């Protein structure tokens, strides 16, 4: 492990933290265009964060320490996740710390903390949101695991960098199972990031919302951290998707030098732009499901992932 | 010499108590005579340990490893039961269920019963064995009907008729045995009925006759063992007789009857081979165990409950003897010992429990630990012991029996599993609410002296985790003897 790889690690994390809100903003803009509304400025999320950071926190009277600690924990886990996912380079020192299963675990930790925090105040909506969030979670998490299992079957590893390396070194065959996995992954990503059709990030109609319902009691810097964390989460999911399905441009083992890094950054931004547009498109085209339909949707994703595995055994090597 | 003492003491006791049985000191006298018998028995035991098996009185009596420990056991349980019956019968008398005349009858018959059983155990003569068994029946009949209630009379009547008929079959079997034996042994000096001689020549005895004889002997003595479906007298007699009588019936009489069966089995096996008698015993044993277990499930009367449990255990022991072989026989002998100790202890506590509750109906007995901890824990521990919970000795024998059965006749294990499981559920579901839970009656000021109970349980516990070398040696020798 050389110093340079630590530097790259740092660059990657810093980049992630920096451009995650931008990605969110970009998606919002695309949605606005697609729904031909006048788009909000691209940098709106940053302004939002800045404003929130300098407000006073209005904290519910009997909020416990858990409630106050949670935003930091969320942010921390997401940053760590960003450090593990090979968005730019595969030669990441921290990637050995946690493979993809641990990554799923990290997301779960974040989810559990958020839900607990939402239950802490004991308001009707908070607990409602927490329950729904956990429900979505315990169906989405195994689906994600199955997607990763699928990737493992292809490249024989659970650590994302080795996956990318494996993909790059292998002659890039499209295994039929990958298609199933990809669809499943997209569905999971939508669900996990509180997007339509499971949840609507921009609604505040209490009875339908999940994610927002949990944040109702948060304000100011806490809210800022939570929002930032959720945009980081979205960014992370996008990067996982890239690593699994379109790992082109990522600087692999041995490909050192600033050149590769620049290429990687460029590729990443390009992919993000496309992905954001695609996400906005999906959201605009699909309608939000009733909350009772959510399990069916997620079960579908889960089944697709498992089906991918079976397909791999039936057709693949 | 010891033989005369051992047999003489109870006889003397019977005579004395027939005279003084109604006096205040009768109970003490009863206990005293039993103690003397116990001491004599232990002397005999010591002597046997020192000099090995021996014959007495023109070969009419003999002591070998098989019967010596049964003699000791009988004398011991006889003594503890006498101890227990002293306060118990006093209370019965105070409750007005007995009068001095009945007590006299009770005491003298008790001693006579002890005499009959010791005779049955010690005699070498199959005919005398039969006479002793009959005498044991006759002496207990009047004990069962001691309360002179309708129920007790009915129980005694059934007991008398069934066992009388059974014992008649046994006599026919004995005659057939003699018939077969006299050809080889001749008629002089009654050697043709002496077990030792028969055992010596069993190879030459006529197989057909012995097979026939065994059937009659098995049905005859089996009735007294309480093997299903010949068992019907047993629960009634246990439930309706006074508790000490139930204790000695379960603890001793069944053992002695089984002892007679096994003595005959040894001879018959020698002549017609292992298969037939073994299979018969196994079948009877399994049937009794399973039937007993299912009958346990439906009991409401506490003494009836444990009467059926005696049937179940006798079934298990018979099954083990049927299996044969050193391990199974060892286990069966051990089980005989621990069963009679445990079961008598249980009957002691059950007697006190029903005395304090004023009923033998189990629904009427509640929260004994609250009323009197010794009774409660005595009943709980006793039941756990009889249910084969380690470290009590019953578990040791069941362990050996089950493992041997699994090894030699796996097809029998499902039946044993069912029997044990059902019996466990049946007894435990009854005992738990009797011992635990709320009770409406207040705690007893002073609990009855339950020394015999805890002595018995302590012995059973000891046998479960540690067996004295001498005892083990007897068991082994007896097991070899039985083959």
């Amino acid at each position: 492990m050389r110093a340079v790889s630590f530097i790259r690690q740092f660059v990657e994390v810093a980049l992630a933290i920096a451009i995650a809100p931008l990605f969110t903003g970009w998606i919002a803009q695309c949605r606005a265009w697609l729904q031909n509304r006048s788009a909000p400025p691209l940098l709106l999320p940053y302004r939002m964060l800045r404003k929130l950071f300098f407000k006073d926190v209005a904290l519910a009277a009997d909020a416990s320490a858990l409630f106050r600690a949670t935003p930091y924990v969320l942010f921390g886990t997401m940053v760590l996740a960003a450090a593990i996912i090979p968005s730019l380079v595969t030669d990441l020192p921290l990637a050995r710390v946690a493979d993809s299963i641990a990554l799923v675990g990290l997301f779960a930790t974040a989810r559990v903390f958020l839900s607990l925090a939402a239950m802490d105040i004991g308001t009707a909506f908070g607990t409602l949101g927490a329950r729904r969030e956990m429900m979505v979670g315990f169906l989405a998490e195994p689906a994600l695991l199955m997607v990763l299992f699928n990737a493992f079957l292809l490249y024989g590893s659970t650590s994302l960098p080795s996956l990318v390396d494996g993909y790059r070194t292998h002659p890039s065959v499209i295994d039929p199972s990958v298609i199933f996995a990809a669809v499943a992954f997209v569905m999971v990503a939508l669900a996990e990031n509180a997007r339509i059709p499971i949840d609507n990030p921009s609604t505040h109609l209490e009875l339908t919302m999940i994610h927002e319902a949990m944040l109702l009691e948060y304000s100011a810097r806490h809210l800022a951290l939570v929002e930032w964390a959720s945009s980081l989460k979205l960014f992370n999911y996008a990067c996982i998707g890239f690593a699994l399905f379109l790992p082109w441009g990522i600087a692999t083992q041995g490909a050192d030098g600033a050149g590769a890094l620049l290429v990687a950054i460029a590729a990443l931004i390009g992919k993000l732009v496309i992905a954001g547009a695609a996400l906005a498109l999906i959201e605009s085209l699909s309608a939000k499901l009733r909350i009772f339909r959510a399990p069916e949707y997620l079960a579908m994703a889960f089944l697709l992932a498992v089906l991918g595995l079976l397909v791999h055994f039936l057709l693949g090597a | 010499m010891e033989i005369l003492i051992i047999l003489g003491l109870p006889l003397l006791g019977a005579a004395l108590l027939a005279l003084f049985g109604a006096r205040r000191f009768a109970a003490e006298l009863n206990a005293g005579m039993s103690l003397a018998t116990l001491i004599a028995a232990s002397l005999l035991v010591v002597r046997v340990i020192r000099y090995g098996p021996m014959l007495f009185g023109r070969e009419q009596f003999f002591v070998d490893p098989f019967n010596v420990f049964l003699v000791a056991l009988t004398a011991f349980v006889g003594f503890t039961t006498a101890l227990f019956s002293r306060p118990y019968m006093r209370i019965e008398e105070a409750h007005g269920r007995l009068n001095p005349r009945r007590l006299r009858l009770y005491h003298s018959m008790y001693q006579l019963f002890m005499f009959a059983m010791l005779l049955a155990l010690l005699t070498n003569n199959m005919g005398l064995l039969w006479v002793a068994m009959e005498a044991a029946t006759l002496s207990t009949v009047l004990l069962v009907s001691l309360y002179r209630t309708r129920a007790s009379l009915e129980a005694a009547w059934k007991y008398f008729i069934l066992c009388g008929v059974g014992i008649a079959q046994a006599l026919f079997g004995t005659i057939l045995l003699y018939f077969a034996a006299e050809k080889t042994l001749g008629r002089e000096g009654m050697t043709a009925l002496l077990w030792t001689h028969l055992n010596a020549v069993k190879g030459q005895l006529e197989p057909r006759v012995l097979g026939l004889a065994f059937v009659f002997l098995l049905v005859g003595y089996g009735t007294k063992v309480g093997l299903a479906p010949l068992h019907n007298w047993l629960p009634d007699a246990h439930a309706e007789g006074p508790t000490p009588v139930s204790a000695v019936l379960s603890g001793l009489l069944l053992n002695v009857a089984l002892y007679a069966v096994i003595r005959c089995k040894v001879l018959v096996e020698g002549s017609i081979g292992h298969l037939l008698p073994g299979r018969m015993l196994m079948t009877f044993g399994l049937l009794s165990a399973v039937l007993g277990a299912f009958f346990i499930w439906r009991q409401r009367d506490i003494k009836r409950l444990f009467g059926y449990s005696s049937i179940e255990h006798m079934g298990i022991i018979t099954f083990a003897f049927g299996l044969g072989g050193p391990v199974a026989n060892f286990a069966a002998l051990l089980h005989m010992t621990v069963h009679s100790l445990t079961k008598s202890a249980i009957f002691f506590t059950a007697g006190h429990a029903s005395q304090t509750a004023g009923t033998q109906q189990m629904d009427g007995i509640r929260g004994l630990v609250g009323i009197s901890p010794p009774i409660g824990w005595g009943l709980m521990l006793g039941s756990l012991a009889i249910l084969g919970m380690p470290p009590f000795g019953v578990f040791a024998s069941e362990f050996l029996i089950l493992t041997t059965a699994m090894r030699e006749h796996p097809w029998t294990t499902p039946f044993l599993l069912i029997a044990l499981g059902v019996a466990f559920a049946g007894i435990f579901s009854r005992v738990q609410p009797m011992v635990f839970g709320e009770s409406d009656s207040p705690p007893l000021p002073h609990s009855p002296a339950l020394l015999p109970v805890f002595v018995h349980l302590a012995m059973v516990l000891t046998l479960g985790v540690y067996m004295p070398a001498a005892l083990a040696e007897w068991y082994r020798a007896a097991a070899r003897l039985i083959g």
Partner: protein
Amino acid sequence: MLLSANHWISGLAETLAVNDLHSVLLLVAAWMVLGFAGFLRPHSIRFVARFLFPAGAVLCLGVALLAGLFLASGHAPQLVVLPLGLPDLPFHIRLDVLSAFFLLLLGVAGAGISTFAAGYFRSGEGTAPALLGLEYHFFLASMAMVILADDAYLFMVAWETMALSSYFLVTSHHRIPEIRRAGFLYMIMAHVGAVCILLCFGVLQGGSWQFTFDAMRGAHFTPFWATTAFLLALLGFGAKAGLVPMHVWLPEAHPAAPSPVSAMMSGLMLKTAIYGMLRISFDLLSVRFWQWGVLLLALGLFSALFGAIFAAVQTDMKRLLAYSSIENVGLIFTGIGLSILFETSNMHLFAALAMTAALVHSLNHALFKSLLFLTTGSVLHATKQRSLGKLGGLIRRMPWVASLALIGTLSIAGLPPLNGFVSEWLLLQSFLFTPQLPHAFLNMLIPLGAAALALTVALSAYVMVKFYGVIFLGQPREPSLVNAHDANWLERLGLIWLAAGCVLIGALPQLAIMAAAPVTGKLVGDTVRSSSTFWSIAPIAQEQASYSGLILLAGILSVVAITFVCVRVVAHGRIRRTAAWDCGYPWQTSRMQDTAEGFGQPIRHMFGTFFRMERSLPSASDTAPRYRVYIEDRLWRAIYLPIARGVQKLADGIGFLQGGRLSIYLLYSFLTLLGLLVFVL
């Protein structure tokens, strides 16, 4: 660095452990002495609880230390023969790596539990203190003897003594009918299971009187008999471990017991069943077949899913934990099943991986399940409430218990960087390698297994959020909760000990893996490579999968710290306390919070087929509308009631055999006689 530490430990072991077995036996004997010592002052709770129990805890530590040293030192198995038991079968006692591992588990968790119990037991509750102490310490001692026994008889004696002592502990509040019922059910299942184990030994015995495990190891069996033995063992130990469908007693008995006892039963006693399963299927039986593995796998996964689903719909906090025990036992059995699968197809490394997962999970479960049961004990004492519907907001009244319970919750939910995640990670890893099995059919099936496992793990997180959130967070659902008090210092000490264990194994899982390594080496002939660096584990190969709890923990903490500092530096720390906003909804009461039933709703909705449900919905005209839902286990009606009914029927049916008519009785004898005569004719 790790290796050097290892050397150092083993050197210490060499010097210290002259003969561990003797010292262990001494400690076990000391437990029994403690048990009897209570009768010196039978009614003084201060003497028994405050003095004897801590002493017992110290002994636990001693046992754990000796076992750990034995594992580290790599001694050969040590044998002792006591002059007790049956004449030709004295008590054989043996300490080998497998026993040592489970002794370690017993000691570590037992120490915490005993410390807690010292503070927990109050006077005037249930049975007399002395009796309680006797039963408690005999429970400990018998579990140790089960683990140490080296012949069938001693094993069975210890096994049943364990059942007996725990039964008396469960029924220590025997005046409550439900508790008596639970105790009865427990006793029945325990006894039937024990008989099955007994029969299994009957199959295994090497010949007449050959009941020592050595003789059994020597014996050879046809596949049929080996399978019979295995199935009997599965029945027996499964019944004790609460494997579905032999689980019915568990959710009744565990909640009924006083909390430290629940902790011991869930945390430790279930593990003795795991131990027995391993001992018989891997040590005593010389042959194994892959079908066994499939069976265990199927049963384990089903139990895990079943337990998680039922835990999710419980409304009693201790029942919830009991069902989660079923889930975890299921996971452990899954690991064993996989291990058998791999081992029978000669993939020893993967077999070792799966078994390591099972062993580590046993250890973890012992830690966090005891921790959680103990916290419920504190809650119970503080609030007198077991029903989730009457709790809430305790994090403000009992901060100690709440924060320690949080650790337990996160661990059992399988979240990094705590210990629950480690074992589940290992289990998933071992699932990943199943495709290399030589059975094409299994290759198709096992991904489904992996899916079920993933679902279970995720579901357990749901369950634990419900558990923690409803008990400790939100508003108190009963006015009486406001004067709930925190645990006393002994209780805290015990909880802290266990929580520390959770964190430690979470951060340095290689400690647990090192402890398990000799066991796997002995049982499946290979050990998981713990990686070159001391801070991370890579069971198979670095590039395939690696995990480092320590760095993860450090990373999260440091990032959180940095963020905190930055936020404070850039912005400010001003806080205004106000009423909760809740979308400006004015009149909120604690009844408006989501309830335990509410949390169960999605599960009931999705997995309805598992339950028998009875719902009473309020009608529009109800003056006091109330929503009741009653959940029942289908298996109870499907399996157990029919058996009970069948026995009842038979018992009723045979009544006519004894109709009271003497003539009929005579007829029986007559027919028996004739029958036998025909038989010999």
